[in-house]
C-alpha cells in the first residue's frame, strides 16, 4: 500500500480520504473464520470429546467446589493477615515506637560505611534490600515475557500470520508519526543525549541521586523516542528480539549470581573481596555499580519491549 499522505487529503478534499480508507480496509479486512478448536486428527477429537464430557458433568462440579472453597479460604486468610498486621501497627500519632525504631537510623548513620554508597537510597535498594530488588527486576522480566506471549505476532509463513504481520505493518504506517522531518531532526539531537544521560545515571547511581530504575527508564525513553522518529527498520539494526533476550536474561543472571555469591560468602563469614572501596570514587561500593547497570538494562529493555509490542506486536 502506498503511504497515506495527510497533505493529499487536505488538498484534494474528502475523495482522497475515502479512497485511502477503502484501500486500507481492503488490506486489513478479516480472513474467513475458522473454528480454532477444530482438531485435525480423529483421535485427538475423541480425547477432546471425552474431556469435554467429563468436565461438563462430574469434573465441573468437583472443580467448582474446589474453586469456591479455595477462593473463600484464600480471601479469609489474606484478610485475617492484613487485619492482624493493621492491629499490630503503632497508634496513629504515637511517635514513641518510631523513635525506638533504630533500623532507619542505622541505615542513615552506618549505610555509607557498610555499603560504600554516597547515595544511601541506592545503598538500601541494592545492598541491604538487594533480594527485594532482585524480585522486582524479575517481576519486570515476567511482565515483558507475558506481553510477548500475548501480543507477539506469529512468525510463520502461513497466510494467516503473514496477513497479521501485514495488518500490523499497515496500522503502524497509518497511525504513527513515521517519516516526520521535524521529529526526526529533533530526535537526532535528543536521543543520543537522552541515552548518554541514562548511562550517566546508571553509572553514577551510588554517588548521586539516581540508580538502576530511574536510569533504565531514561534509557528506555531514549530508545522509544528513536523508534518513534525512525521506525522499526532503523531500531531493528541494533535492538531486535535476540538482543532483548540476551540483554535481559544476561543482566538478570548476573544479578542473581552476584547476589548469590554475596549471600553465600556473607552468611558463612568468608571474605568476598568486595569492600566498599574509596568513598566517592566511581569504582567504589563493591557491586553497587554493576548491579545498578544490570537493573537499568532490564528496566530499559522492558520499557522498550512493552512499547514496541503494544504498538506493532514485534520487537
Amino acid at each position, binding site marked *: 500500500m502506498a503511504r497515506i499522505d495527510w497533505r493529499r487529503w*487536505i488538498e484534494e478534499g474528502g475523495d482522497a*480520504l475515502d479512497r485511502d480508507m477503502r484501500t486500507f480496509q481492503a488490506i486489513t479486512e478479516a480472513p474467513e473464520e475458522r473454528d480454532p478448536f477444530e482438531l485435525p486428527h480423529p483421535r485427538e477429537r475423541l480425547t477432546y470429546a471425552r474431556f469435554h464430557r467429563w468436565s461438563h458433568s462430574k469434573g465441573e462440579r468437583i472443580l467448582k467446589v474446589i474453586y469456591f472453597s479455595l477462593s473463600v479460604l484464600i480471601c479469609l486468610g489474606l484478610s485475617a493477615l492484613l487485619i492482624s498486621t493493621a492491629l499490630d501497627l503503632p497508634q496513629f500519632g504515637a511517635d514513641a515506637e518510631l523513635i525506638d525504631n533504630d533500623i532507619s537510623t542505622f541505615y542513615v548513620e552506618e549505610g555509607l560505611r557498610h555499603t560504600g554508597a554516597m547515595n544511601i537510597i541506592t545503598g538500601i535498594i541494592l545492598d541491604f534490600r538487594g533480594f527485594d530488588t532482585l524480585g522486582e527486576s524479575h517481576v519486570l522480566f515476567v511482565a515483558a515475557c507475558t506481553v510477548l506471549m500475548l501480543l507477539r505476532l506469529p512468525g510463520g509463513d502461513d497466510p494467516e500470520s503473514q496477513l497479521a504481520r501485514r495488518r500490523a505493518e499497515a496500522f503502524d504506517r497509518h497511525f504513527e*508519526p513515521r517519516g*516526520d522531518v*521535524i*521529529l526526526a531532526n*529533533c530526535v537526532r539531537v*535528543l536521543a543520543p543525549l537522552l541515552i548518554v544521560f541514562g548511562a550517566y545515571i546508571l553509572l553514577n547511581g551510588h554517588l548521586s541521586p539516581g540508580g538502576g530504575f530511574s536510569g533504565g527508564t531514561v534509557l528506555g525513553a531514549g530508545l522509544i523516542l528513536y523508534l518513534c522518529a525512525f521506525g522499526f527498520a532503523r531500531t531493528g539494526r541494533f535492538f531486535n528480539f535476540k538482543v532483548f533476550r540476551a540483554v535481559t536474561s544476561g543482566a538478570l543472571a548476573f544479578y542473581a549470581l552476584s547476589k548469590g555469591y554475596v549471600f553465600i560468602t556473607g552468611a558463612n563469614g568468608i571474605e568476598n573481596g568486595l569492600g566498599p572501596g574509596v568513598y566517592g570514587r566511581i569504582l567504589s561500593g563493591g557491586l553497587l555499580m554493576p548491579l545498578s547497570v544490570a537493573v537499568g538494562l532490564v528496566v530499559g529493555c522492558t520499557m522498550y519491549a512493552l512499547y514496541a509490542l503494544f504498538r506493532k506486536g514485534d520487537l
Partner: protein
Amino acid sequence: MLEWLRFGLCALLMALGLFFEISAVIGVFRFQYVLNRIHAASLGDTLGVFFLLLGLAVANGLDMLTLKILLLIPLFWTTSPVSSHLIGKLELTTNEELNKEVSLWKR
C-alpha cells in the same frame, strides 16, 4: 541597591512567566477543540517556562546551577513545539470530520 535591582528583575520575569502560564492554563480549559488547546498549551510550555527559568537564573546568580537552568531552555524549546506539532498532525490525520472544525486552506 544591586540586590534590590536583582530581586526586582527576578520578580518581573517570574510575573511575566506566571502570566503566560496562567493564560495557558485558562486557554487549555476554556477552548473546546484540540488545535486551539495546543495553541494555548504550547504558549505556556515555551514562553512561560522561558521567563520562569530566566527569573530563576537571575535569582540564583552566576554559577553551575544557572548554567544548568539556562540549558533547560533550549531543551524545552525543542521538545515542546515538536510534541505540539505531532499532536496537531495526529489530529489532522485521524479526524475524519475535520471540515466541521476548521476551514481548510486550499492551494
